[in-house]
């Protein structure tokens, strides 16, 4: 069958010139239409964000709209020194600590769940749909439920207990879904090969599965960190008396009408970009190392 298909390819080639997306030759008009749509989409995606980064570098006369009024770091200094804008420094600190804790827990639990879901087991659908439910449930409602639950149990809501749990109910479904995508490319025969060579179950996990899945595990960590770091709806009723950064931003959008709001946006996005860059860089590095080892 496949031989027939490969034989046919030569004959098919000329016809592909009028395909929806020929692999060579003249591009159809739809290419240019869709390429413009794509460009517009990317412009609309990044354009507004870039506007607020630029506007955050105004001087003291600055407002919320263009034109730029001077250039300075005034609003960044303002952000971290003024009491008016709230406890930005403290919430930064808490958000990063929380995101690190969430990342570690998300990676470990998602990896284990990914291993578990490789085979069907009695009741697996219950766990699966519980996870989907946790993903699609309105965050504010879940947050309120968690808050009331802590109240009923006489526990104090705080960012490292109730908010931690509430955030995990959001990051874990994403982590497990990413694990599913990664696991689907893992060949079970590699497990068998490891067992045949005398590896124990733990050795197979540590020396075969973890290294093979390493890029996917980095991706899970990226989801864990960024989703926690920006999480808002579920934290609102569960963070207790001390704010995380997104809660601080939320209260600023309601009260602050100066470019310090934009400055905060610039600072938090820089952190996000560093994390994204480091994660994607690590993934590329792992793949490259593999490529060179396979060649050499």
């Amino acid at each position, binding site marked *: 069958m496949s031989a027939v298909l490969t034989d046919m390819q030569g004959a098919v080639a000329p016809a592909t010139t009028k395909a929806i997306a020929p692999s060579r030759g003249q591009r159809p008009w739809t290419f240019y239409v869709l390429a413009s749509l794509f460009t517009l*989409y990317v412009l609309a995606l990044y354009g507004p964000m870039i506007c*607020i980064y630029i506007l955050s570098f105004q001087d003291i006369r600055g407002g919320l*709209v263009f034109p730029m009024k001077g250039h300075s770091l005034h609003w960044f200094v303002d952000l971290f020194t003024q009491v008016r804008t709230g406890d930005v420094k403290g919430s930064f600190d808490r958000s990063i600590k929380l995101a690190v804790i969430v990342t570690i827990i998300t990676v470990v639990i998602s990896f284990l769940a990914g291993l578990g879901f490789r085979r069907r087991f009695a009741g697996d659908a219950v766990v699966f749909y519980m996870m989907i439910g946790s993903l*699609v*449930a309105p*965050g504010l*409602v*879940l947050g309120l439920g968690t808050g009331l639950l802590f109240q009923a149990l006489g526990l104090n809501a705080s960012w490292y207990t109730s908010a931690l749990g509430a955030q995990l109910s959001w990051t874990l479904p994403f982590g497990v879904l990413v694990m599913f995508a990664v696991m689907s490319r893992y060949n079970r025969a590699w497990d068998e090969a490891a067992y045949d060579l005398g590896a124990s179950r733990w050795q197979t996990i540590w020396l075969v599965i973890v290294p093979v899945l390493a890029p996917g595990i980095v991706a899970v960590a990226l989801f864990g960190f960024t989703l926690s770091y*920006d999480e808002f709806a579920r934290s609102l009723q569960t963070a207790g008396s001390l704010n995380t950064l997104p809660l601080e931003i939320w209260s600023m959008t309601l009260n602050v009408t100066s470019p310090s709001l934009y400055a905060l946006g610039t600072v938090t*996005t820089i952190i996000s970009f560093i994390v994204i860059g480091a994660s994607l860089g690590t993934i590329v590095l792992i793949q490259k190392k593999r490529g060179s080892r396979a060649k050499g």
Partner: protein
Amino acid sequence: MQSSQTPPRANLAGWLCVSPLVAVLVPFFVAPILVVLAASFFATDGFGGLTPGFTLSNYIEVLHSALTLKLYLATIKFTVLTWIFTLIIGFFVAYFLVFHVRNQLLAIGLFLLCTVPFWTSNIIRMISWIPLLGKEGLINQALLATGAIHQPLEVLLFSDLAVVIAYVHQLTIFMIVPIFNSMARIDKKLIEAAIDAGASRFDIMRLIVVPMSKSGIALGTIFVVSIVMGDFFVVKVMSGGGSASVVSAFYEDVGVLQYPTAAASAVLLTLVLVAVVSLILRTVDIRQEITR
């Protein structure tokens, strides 16, 4: 069922692996939902105190209020509009990346370019429309300069239009990723065969690409619908307080400690959401799709 044939040892190993996941989801997903469900039957003293008991008055209050219908209509309007725009943009962006970009590495790079903002703050991305859409924003400035309008347009910011723009801006990515995934699995030979058989480009789109991306569209729809229906901050900020949705009204209720009515309205919303999601799930086996 397949699972009844699995040996007990495999069941045990499976449960051991997912037990930490269950240990988080039970107290932080199942229990909070049950608490909200219970609170919806409680009475209140009006000051945030809850009296355990069983009353349907919260539901009666919610269902009898003319406001409820208005809130649901507004929520449905936002959901449908956002869904249409994210679907159209998401579908064609994914289609472009899969079928028109010839260099695979470039396609992955462009795909990442679309996904990076997903990992940054939603609130910041939302407020970043203010310098563009505001009364003195860039769009009004540009339109005034070209002479297309003589008064700045007020409908751009703090309006339903701004709400939909912010939603589409944030959520199109949730359509692009699953649709891209299902399209990337379509065998290119299938399309070449269709061309050989004399199919037009439109036929290929209608008979091959759309049906084979159905599961991606369904997954994206679940994300977009559940996020828009569960959102409150975009509606609150981008409408300037002019519009409300079911959850933004819930937020106001919670703010004035009206927990039982808020809980009753949340339970109703959850039921609607479950109905919509299971309707979508009937068209596609999501689990098989994800684990494939």
